[in-house]
């Protein structure tokens, strides 16, 4: 997918573990792992809001659009 998730980087910067984030935002570790590993197909606004609130960041700090990957997929 052309959207990549940089949750692990933000977590590292905040010194927070995935387990701790899971407890704070009320999302299971399994689901956060799906998000972190880039396997997620969609993210709810409520989840994004909770993550941004706990990590004190903007959605753009977590989600990135990779134009090159998008172009590569379109070319396939």
């Amino acid at each position, binding site marked *: 997918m052309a959207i990549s998730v940089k949750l692990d980087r933000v977590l590292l910067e905040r010194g927070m573990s995935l387990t701790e984030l899971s407890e704070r935002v009320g*999302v299971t570790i399994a689901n956060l792992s*799906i*998000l972190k590993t880039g396997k*997620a*197909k*969609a993210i709810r606004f409520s989840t994004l809001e909770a993550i941004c609130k706990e990590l004190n960041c903007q959605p753009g700090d977590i989600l990135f659009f990779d134009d090159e990957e998008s172009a590569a997929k379109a070319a396939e």
Partner: protein
Amino acid sequence: MRAIGKGSLASILAVGLHFTRIILWIGFVGLSIAMAIVPFATLIAAAIDGVANVNLEGDISVTGEDYIGIAHHFVNFGVMLFVVTRLLEILKTLRFGSPFVKENADRFRGVGYALLIGEGDKITFGFMSLIFDADVEINTTIISWLAIIAVFVLGEVFREGARMKEEQDLTV
């Protein structure tokens, strides 16, 4: 009525389909043997007739018409067996609580193709029976064709359902 579990329509259907499958298997095996033996029936009868203490009364003659009839039923039983097996597999996924998977979409498509072969079989052998004077009628109906289209539509619905389920499972 419950969707799954004991006393549900799915479980009743599964029992019925299991029973039907056993009957179809017996018929299919019998027809397979007949398909293999019938062309040589006259030779076999002649060979047996020559053995001591065996007396076959009357003439055993197998004609092309007989073989057309057997081949028609053989294809029919094969199609029915395939359809029943696929339906049982679909019901199995329902019992396990995950019917919306890509495999079921493929199974429905397979059932659709099998039913197409079944209708093709009726028409082909029907025309052959006209030529060779066999006892196979061309009895295809519009309802049958609509049912085939319905199965293909259902397959595509399941394909989209499987995609939506995957998306839902991977929504955080």
